């Protein structure tokens, strides 16, 4: 699988995201938001950053960029589309995922590690984890409070579309939920499981040189998923 990493004006996590994919043995390519095709890539990551400065609402303007057309098409045909942080916000604004991400409940930007539980270990970015496994990776956002109406949330839970959840670990004196997301939701997927969005940043902690590579397996999973797809 070849991963298209999308750059909108204001995207700022594209470099480390591409590096993380390559470190996991995958192929990644930077794609400009003005493109109308994915240049032969069969997977997409919408990386973090501040597309269009997060003006109006994060992801609200990026949603209309030309590149979103081929991305929607890929998603509709079951192709893998991942949104990290700002990418997650774009996917919600584009209605490829339900709900919305609003300003953190504390009304402050929150940059710190979060403890998250892997709720689904059968998806493109989680297959290298065990279900229920907890890891600590960085998170940094001002608009990460996931909200959706009661029915939507109930459906997400019932259909197990919650992929990552904030959990509290003993001894931590930070609120385990950094932004007030409903049901401690940190990441979700669409019914088919091929469109996945989450707020934390595994790509920022995917290299042992930094003291931990807790995020590395998101990308080995992704590369695995690609391999399986090709053989199977």
């Amino acid at each position, binding site marked *: 699988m070849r991963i298209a990493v999308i750059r909108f004006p204001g995207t*700022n996590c594209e470099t480390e995201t591409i590096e993380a994919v390559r470190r996991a043995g995958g192929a990644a390519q930077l794609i400009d938001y003005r493109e109308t095709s994915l240049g032969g890539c069969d997977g997409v990551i919408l990386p973090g950053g501040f597309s269009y400065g997060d003006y109006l609402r994060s992801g609200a303007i990026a949603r209309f960029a030309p590149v979103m057309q081929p991305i929607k098409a890929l998603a509709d045909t079951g192709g893998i589309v991942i949104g990290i942080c700002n990418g997650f916000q774009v996917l919600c604004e584009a209605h490829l995922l339900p709900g919305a991400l609003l300003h953190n409940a504390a009304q*402050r930007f929150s940059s*710190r590690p979060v403890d998250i539980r892997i709720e689904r270990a059968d998806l493109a970015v989680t297959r290298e984890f065990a279900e229920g496994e907890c890891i600590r990776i960085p998170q*940094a956002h*001002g608009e990460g409070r996931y909200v959706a109406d009661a029915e939507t949330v109930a459906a997400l839970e019932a259909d197990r579309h919650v992929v990552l959840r904030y959990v509290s670990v003993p001894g*931590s004196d930070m609120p385990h939920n950094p932004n007030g997301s409903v049901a401690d939701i940190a990441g979700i997927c669409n019914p088919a499981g091929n469109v996945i969005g989450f707020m934390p940043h595994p790509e920022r902690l995917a290299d042992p*040189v930094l003291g931990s590579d807790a995020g590395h397996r998101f990308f080995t999973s992704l590369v695995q998923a690609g391999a399986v797809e090709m053989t199977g």
Partner: protein
Amino acid sequence: MSHETRPTALPGEPPVTEELVRDHKLTDSEYTAIRSLLGDRTPTLTELGIFSALWSEHCSYKHTKPVLRRFPTTGPQVLQGPGENAGVLSLPDGWAVAFKIESHNHPTAVEPYQGAATGVGGILRDVFTMGARPVALLNSLRFGPLDDPRNRYLFAGAVRGVGDYGNCMGVPTLGGEVQFAPCYAGNPLVNAMAVGVLRADDLITARAHGVGNLLINVGASTGRDGIHGASFASEDLSAESEARRPQVQVGDPFTEKLLLEASLELIESGIIVAIQDMGAAGLTSSSAEMAARGGVGVELDTSLVPTREAGMTPYEIMLSESQERMLVVAEPHQVEAIQAICRKWEQDATVVGRVTDDGLFRIVHHGQLVASIPGQPLVDGCPVYHPDAAEGPEAVARRAATPGAPDVDPEEALRRLLDAPSIASKRWVFEQYDGTVRGRSVATPGGDAGIVRVDDTDFGIAMTVDCNARHVLLDPFEGGKGVVAEAARNIACTGARPLGITDCLNFGNPERPEVFFQFVEACRGISEACEAFGTPVTGGNVSLYNQSPTGAIDPTPTVGMIGLLDDVRHAVPSTFRQVGDAILLIGTTRGHLGGSAYWAEVLDAVVGPPPPIDLPRERAVQEILIAAAAKGWLGSAHDLSDGGLAVALTECCIGGPWATVTFGADIDLARHADAVSDHGWLFGEDAGRVLLSCSPEHVSALQALAAMHGESAHYLGLVGEPEGDVVVRRDDRRWSWPSRDLRRIHLDAIPRRMSVPVLAGES
């Protein structure tokens, strides 16, 4: 363009009267100098504005030049010293680091959010103007006490502004400091530092040359923002200056991110001659300084500059401080290539002038010549002043004084120290700053210094900003040395070697002898320390007139230091990691309480001489840390600063900002420095001391290493159980605190105070 030689006033433009001259903060003698420079004619309004900007303290350094010249600025590692937008030091494998610190104090006093945000935007431009990609930010903040709602408002707004700008730019903030003291209530300080990396051979400087080359305005269009910002930054804050407040500069980090990418691509493509950001005094200083550096003239046509508002005059266009703008010099045949790159990043690129051979700084507006000034003297012809410097009697008295209040029981005293916002954890602050974007952060805020890995190499850049203004106030010379010494200690604690500094000299009104004495002496102290450590000054920024109706601020010469860590895998954390590790103290304890945080925060007395700084011994301590880290002997290393041993031991035990365990500790001070008082031992701030932890088998090796450098590593005790007590014994005395309680106090001090609402209005 224009062929007239004598500039004329525009229709409807006010005549230049003595009053108007005074309005522009130019003295009679300066005005006389200007007239003779112009061949004894009266300047036009535009010319007057240009002079007032470039001859302001902020741009001309007219009070400080002679003092700054004494800084050591050379060394084998220096690729670019003072005089450019940022200093540059060489790193291994052909890499280099560009870094600079700058103040945005007055704008922050007026509008904290935008003032702080545009401060960060400005310092980032200084760094990428050199061809460096910004990889880290730091910030040094000073505010009045948090019990006052106005101070909470300024603090909260500035922190949000610093965060929002850097976060949107995708540059991690890896360090800083925050202090609170009454003297900053009317005059908060916001100093922002940016660090960038580049390939040494991509280094580009801001020198215009090549007669006939074009000047190109890149980036945002020009509005009436911050007109007179430069002279505004050079006067005391008063009710009257509030009234004459310039249009607030609004930052647009989104545009700056695109401008950053466009600028770096322009530089890498090699199609431009020079590039310079438009900071204070915008187009005026950028064009005049580029011309002067290159020894050429320039002619600008202000009617070509893209403006945000209709009907802007050349005066306004030349003095506007609209953000996110760059000035590029290029050969005419490159203009289209330049515009193509700018279009890719959605930035305007407009030709606004050309390089000339007559050495004149000429401004044309719709064909009319409105300014014609000899370029060189315009930039460095401002009269230089040598103010009187004399220590004030109250300063002498302060240094000689001792606290009136009796000592406070050590267990209670430590709790109060940890609850003092200046000493407490700054987690509430740096949690609002993205610390991990770019995926190269080896050490985020919370330790002694931040560390960022250079691209995919093994080495990293360590960085810190420090200033103990209380020590500088009590003894500017020793305090000045101390600022550099603490910064170097912070760098060395991570295992990195100090390479060089940038400084931000925040002082009061230099025309007051007691203030200028502080300035001269602090600079002398900084110079001596930099000489001793081999860490040259590569640039910096002077902010004077930090003077509110309530008086001058404490002298605050903030130092930003850069260090090199050969292998980021050997980075040493600042907190204990392992039960049973040995705790060692490097350095000599004399129980020096003068100028200490204990006296200031607990006994409410900012008095006494600050600790003397022994530079050779500081250097020795640095060498010990660097060697021990390289050998992998250190579990942790943390320098002793505010609050002395008790606070440092606490910080080592309670863990970093996100830790889930605290450690107990059991140390015994008996048989060490017996003559020292209990409070001196616990809270004294003798310099050159570091608290280490290491696995027991390395103790003797560490002690031998220390001895080899003429220092001693005193064995104090052991790291205790998780969630255990912090115990300090001395002969028949025993003090103890539950480590979890100490952590709670340290972490809650600021959030508790900030949970009270902050006001937007009533500024």
